[in-house]
């Protein structure tokens, strides 16, 4: 089905609204949850949110919120949005683009107040919660950048999981043997590249289905690192599996900005590299010659070829670059969050990174925010289990995945992947 052409006079074709009830239905479901939980089941009393960390120069007083009025307010607002969205669709109009963001923010506020208010300890450090989210999101962001780099040239990168895991393993081993964390980071990068070389060779040269190669790679890396872990690493973990940790670098002055400083500017070098990577990939893709060529290869490889651009070379190069980025991200697991490698320690985060890339519409900056959202959901689960909430642990464990599904399937709408994504290029 081709879209109608525009007339030479440039008059636009008529747009009809194809009604989709998906969004209002999702709104309504969560509005019911909000009413039943946050409003009618409000815990009473207050919830306290700390907004300054111990190190901060400027100490702000914690925010104390009464649970009943805030619970009701948030529940009523989301209900109102659900009704509004329903009426919009019924009237053949489109929701404003910011509506899902407002909805999500209000819902999250309502949820936090309710859950903290009903916990055994009714105060929580908001800054700690958010800073933890950023920390947890770091490997996700590296992973989704790997996806962006690879899929923008048209190679589906399911192997992010394997690249992260290989990076984590290599970082642990190399840093343990050498006693040098930077050697660990380098080894992680190389390991990520090695995984992606297999992906590149099989999908670009031998035209094997890219999704299958990716899944097989994930299983392979998982099996290989698991085997080496049980046969070598766990026998003598002193030699093989006790990497030093990366130091946290506090940026002077900036770290003392109230609220944000503690969240953004107390990171390890891997964390700062993550910010740099997002910015570099974004500028690279959309403002340089390299990026124009990269995108052309992912959209219409034949056209790129007719202009003298080497399609398969560009693809292979980008897939490997993606592998390097994801491998480096993998080092985060063993050099920052946990100081040793364990079997399958990435626990499916590579797939979440893939979801962040899709939610972020193959754009590094949006993927960054999507990954932050998933990081937030993951961290919330940890923080809440410490607080001792009435919500069963199994439900909390589901939280990041529920957020992923709702975000990608429900709210993202139809996002358009690079046109040649997943299609091998055969000359002639």
């Amino acid at each position, binding site marked *: *089905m*081709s*879209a*109608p*052409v*525009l*007339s*030479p*006079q440039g008059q636009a*074709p*008529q*747009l*009809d*609204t*194809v009604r989709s009830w998906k969004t209002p239905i999702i709104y309504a479901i969560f509005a019911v949850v909000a009413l039943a939980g946050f409003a009618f089941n409000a815990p009473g009393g207050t919830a306290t949110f700390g907004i300054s960390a111990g190190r901060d120069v400027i100490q702000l007083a914690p925010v104390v919120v009464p649970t009943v009025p805030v619970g009701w307010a948030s529940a009523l607002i989301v209900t109102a949005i659900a009704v509004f969205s329903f009426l919009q669709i019924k009237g053949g109009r489109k929701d404003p683009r910011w509506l899902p963001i407002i909805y999500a923010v209000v819902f999250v506020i309502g949820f936090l107040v309710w859950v903290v208010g009903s916990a055994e300890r009714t105060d929580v450090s908001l800054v700690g919660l958010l800073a933890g989210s950023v920390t947890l999101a770091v490997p996700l962001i590296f992973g989704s950048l790997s996806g962006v780099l690879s899929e923008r040239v048209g190679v589906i990168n399911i192997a992010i999981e394997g690249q992260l895991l290989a990076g984590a393993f290599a970082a642990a081993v190399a840093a343990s043997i050498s006693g040098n964390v930077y050697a660990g980071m380098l080894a992680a990068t190389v390991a990520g590249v090695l995984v992606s070389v297999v992906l590149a060779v099989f999908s670009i040269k031998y035209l094997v289905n890219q999704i299958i190669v990716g899944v097989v790679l994930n299983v392979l890396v998982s099996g290989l690192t698991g085997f080496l872990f049980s046969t070598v690493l766990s026998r003598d973990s002193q030699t093989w599996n006790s990497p030093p940790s990366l130091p946290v670098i506090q940026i002077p002055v900036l770290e003392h900005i109230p609220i944000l400083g503690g969240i953004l500017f107390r990171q390890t070098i891997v964390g700062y590299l993550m910010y740099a990577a997002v910015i570099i990939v974004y500028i690279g893709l959309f*403002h*340089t*010659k*390299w*990026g*124009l*060529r990269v*995108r*052309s290869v992912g*959209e*219409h490889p*034949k*056209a*790129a*070829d*007719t*202009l*003298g*651009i*080497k399609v398969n070379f560009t693809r292979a190069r980008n897939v490997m670059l993606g592998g390097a980025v994801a491998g480096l991200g993998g080092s985060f697991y063993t050099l920052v969050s946990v100081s040793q490698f364990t079997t399958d320690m990435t626990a499916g985060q590579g797939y979440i990174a893939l979801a962040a890339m899709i939610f972020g519409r193959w754009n590094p900056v949006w993927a960054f925010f999507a990954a932050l959202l998933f990081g937030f959901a993951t961290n919330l689960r940890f923080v809440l289990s410490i607080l001792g909430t009435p919500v069963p642990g199994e439900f909390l464990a589901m939280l990041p995945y529920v957020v992923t599904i709702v975000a990608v399937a429900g709210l993202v709408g139809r996002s*358009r992947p690079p*046109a040649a994504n997943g299609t091998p290029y055969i*000359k*002639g």
Partner: protein
Amino acid sequence: MPARLTHSKNRLVGVLKLELEGITKRFGSLVANDHIDLVVEPGQIHSLLGENGAGKSTLMNVLYGLYHPTEGRILVDGKQVSFKGPGDAMAAGIGMVHQHFMLIPVFTVAENVALGNEATRAGGMLDLEKTRRRIREISDRYGFHVDPDALVEDLPVGVQQRVEIIKALVRDAEVLILDEPTAVLTPQETDELIDIMAQLKANGTSIVFISHKLREVKAVSDVITVIRRGKVVGTAEPSASTTELASLMVGRSVSLNLEKEEATPGEKTFQVRDLKVTAANGYRVVNGVSFDVARGEVLAVAGVQGNGQTELTEAVLGLQDHVSGSIKLEGKELVGRTVKQVLAAGVGFVPEDRTVDGLVGPFTIAENMVLDMYDRAPYATGLGMKPKVIADHAREKVNEFDVRTAGIDSAVGTLSGGNQQKVVLARELSRPLKLFIASQPTRGLDVGSIEFVHKRIITERDNGTPVIIVSTELDEVAELADRIAVMYQGKLMGIVPGGTSRDVLGLMMAGMSEEDAKAQPHSEHPMETGGPAHIEERDKAAREGHTEERGGDQ
């Protein structure tokens, strides 16, 4: 590209001479080009005429560096060159506008033009401003009216084609290859393209014009080279008559006009009222269309590709989701019916893309012949199919429709386009029909198959079936239609009698109402020139050798 600069300094602009000597290109056992010689003189429009599959595009892809010739050599200004890729060909001053545009839809015009030839600032940062300036410059010189910042996917095809030409000109192309450039254009856009070609020629650019449309080739060429089955079979001057060119191209004498009786329309059994179709992306692709078709008449739906014709036919079949209005066949409402119910109501349908929608490629001919009836008598009982009945049916139809195949158990995907289309026709015409719809029935077929398909369509009409043809080829419309409905942006611009002139149809295809189109003063059409024949035939024996292969494919 420093090499490029030194190269053009060694060359005088506008005098590039291009020679192909003994070019042979084989794909496995298939010989696509067989010792082809071709000389393109500077400042000349040289046409390559040949049927679909004759090897024209292959030859040009060799010239453009996309394929490497198996044998033979290419000379630029007398010096042998070897193109490792299109980059080398561009550096040598050769540009190409492909039949399927090589533009990236989500890029702007400037980005598309810059791609592969980018101006940059420090650090590889794109400098699109230079490219924009070049585009405006070229656009002004030739009157292209192209906005450098428009997204390509929002541009009409005619403008997209100009972007392709700009792409070549920005790279200082002195030989411009245009591969079937008129296939996607309205007649008016075609005339504009012909003007552009004349201007380019006046500025010293030589053009290789590839086409199978005799009228256009005659209108633009300085020299015509005819290719058949991968060989050069002759050269002709543009003054050669259409019939002579056609017989040289096909290899036997062809009657260009279909012999058919005057239509005797009966009762109007098929009625469409205020039909609206909305695509999944929200565009209203068919916007309030109403028409009738009578028994024993052919209604042709003409229009440029992508103006809602596809969706119109799909709506009748029940293949579209968001349809309003009414479609009545012999009083029975079809809107809201499933495809199966519509087929059962007696609708036969030849889809525009036979390989995707018309046939299941890996299935055998016999299986494809019963795709619509495999589950009922006499081809099935209960859950079981009856292979023998299906095979007998297939054999009978293969004979009746002259399908050239090794056997009914061959996979349909291995057949040539013409034979595939015959299988689709055989299947669709096997049932008693109350309505027959054929979308682009002869796209990509050779002349022999076109004749066959057209005859079958007229036979169906003469049997008293209402027939709807959707075609973007005005020649085909003129040949088959008893009435012509012209579609533009989802609307009917009017329904006119079969003999309406191309000028009027062309204006209607560009969005003018029937009355306005007829009121336009019509100049002598540049394509309607004739004259004495000057055909130099190189391969007369080969031509006569093929005469008995009527209906066979390349």
